[in-house]
């Protein structure tokens, strides 16, 4: 029995990480990246390198079929060379798409060592660089998961509804490329997604196991990126909302920044198009990144985490947990100057 469950676990390095930023996460949730680095350095005392020479992994382009395999493979090799140059061996890509791309390349190189040699040659020809493959690849959520019980005593709040005393009920979404491409790469595999569930349970919440839990968020790369195709994207996300609705989740927790954006923004779109929300009061279901959730429970300021740039508002969730916030600072800039408020949606309540 024990051996059976081994297949659902993964090794996660203890310290000395090389961080790779995500195009999508920094575009939509830059506060999450800052929070992750702060949590690692200040709460856990870990060493993590934020290298200025990094760039996209090309993952969005690769899966939209505008970047060939060989090109993506060599871009990955350059990112590994930056890690090697700085003396690190543990690679931490901040995006599930990137995570999938890196695990794919490592698997291909292991199966066909000549491909790795080809990558070495391409990289040398293009940049005169060399690289080592990492000893360990972990998604940032894997690291938070690993240290979830170390973080717990530092937390000011728990996932408990302070009005009822009951655990908050949470929908989690790990994102397809976290464990569907290489199931061994994800904690709990694709079958028993546990990376986020482990955090939720450790911090007092209850995980909702609903029928479409493993269904795609609907991104579909070209199916969202090309405006004409977006029906695919929203239809698949809607399928998830319909499936989770009757379980009345207090919020949704995501692993991948893309999924987070879709689960947040499509709620707004569906509300405006069909006058339908998936909570009872018409505000929608808040969608948090795991960095935002960890930061909130540790007592970080919600407006520095970036909750104000979500379309579904998070104040009602913070009220339930008992997290204080200053509404007057929500739409202030970094100097404290008040900016004009965003427009209100017509139907979705904010």
């Amino acid at each position, binding site marked *: 029995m024990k051996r059976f469950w081994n297949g659902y676990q993964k090794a996660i390095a203890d310290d000395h990480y090389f961080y790779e930023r995500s195009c999508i996460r920094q575009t939509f949730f830059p506060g999450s990246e*800052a929070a992750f*680095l702060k949590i690692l350095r200040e709460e856990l005392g870990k060493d993590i390198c934020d290298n200025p020479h990094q760039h996209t992994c090309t993952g969005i382009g690769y899966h939209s079929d505008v970047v*060939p395999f060989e090109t993506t493979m060599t871009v990955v090799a*350059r990112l590994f060379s930056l890690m090697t140059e700085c003396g690190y061996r543990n690679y931490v890509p901040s995006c599930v798409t990137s995570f999938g791309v890196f695990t794919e390349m490592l698997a291909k190189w292991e199966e066909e060592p000549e491909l790795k040699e080809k990558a070495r040659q391409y990289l040398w020809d293009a940049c005169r660089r060399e690289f080592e493959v990492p000893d360990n690849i972990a998604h940032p959520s894997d690291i938070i998961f690993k240290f979830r019980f170390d973080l717990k005593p530092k937390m000011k709040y728990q996932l408990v509804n302070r009005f009822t005393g009951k655990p908050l009920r949470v929908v989690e979404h790990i994102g397809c490329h976290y464990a569907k491409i290489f199931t061994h790469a994800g904690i709990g595999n694709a079958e028993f997604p546990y990376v986020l569930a482990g955090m939720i349970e450790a911090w007092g919440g209850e995980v909702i196991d609903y029928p479409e839990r493993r269904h795609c968020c609907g991104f*579909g790369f070209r199916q969202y990126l090309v405006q004409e195709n977006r029906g695919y994207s929203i239809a698949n996300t809607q399928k998830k909302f319909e499936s989770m609705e009757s379980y009345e989740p207090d919020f949704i927790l995501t692993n991948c920044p893309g999924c987070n954006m879709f689960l947040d923004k499509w709620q707004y779109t569906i509300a405006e198009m069909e006058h339908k929300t998936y909570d009872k009061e018409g505000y929608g279901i808040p969608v948090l990144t795991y960095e935002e959730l960890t930061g909130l429970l540790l007592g970080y300021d919600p407006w520095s985490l970036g909750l104000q740039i979500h379309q579904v508002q998070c104040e009602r969730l913070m009220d339930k947990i008992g997290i204080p916030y200053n509404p007057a600072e929500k739409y202030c800039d970094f100097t404290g100057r008040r900016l004009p408020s965003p427009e209100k949606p017509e139907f979705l309540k904010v």
Partner: protein
Amino acid sequence: MNLIEHLKEDVRFEESLKACMNCGVCTAICPAAEFYDYDPRRICDLVQRGDEEEIEQVLRSDTIWYCGQCMSCKTRCPRGNVPGELISVLRKVSQELGLFRHSEKGRQQVLLMNSVHRNIMEIGYCVYPDRVDPDYHPEQGPIWRWYHEHIADIAPKLGANYHGAGPGALRDISEEDLQEVRKIFEVTGGTEFSEKVKKNS
């Protein structure tokens, strides 16, 4: 060269289609099959049959452009095939040979070349807030319009280094690093590939 030979030239081909037994499990799990008239089982079967005429037809069709690359099929296929990866190989060959221009969905590739590919070449990111135009993205809602308009004033509060030098979220990537990325595209055929697609569009 016949089309099967072209497909085999892609290093991913062999792994993506080992032996399909036509069970349809991939189709059962496929989000694209729910939304479009699309059936990954049939694609695997068709390529496996190896009929050149049929393969050419599919390379000219909308069908290969329906997949969302979620890779749910990889997890489930009892034979270890990867229909989503096979699709990627078919799309590559369709673009290499200019066959994509015969399909409406295929012709959308030029839009992606002019957005995602161009972003990588110009700024080193696939996506960047300045390039997510609220007018082209009404689904992003009023909050995105607000953020987009005030990003320079908000980003520092979120710990981002918007258009700054050095490390951090949303920083500008240095010209030296961009040059290396562009050189990789040149050496590995990424630049030539995009030019071919644009020329054939």
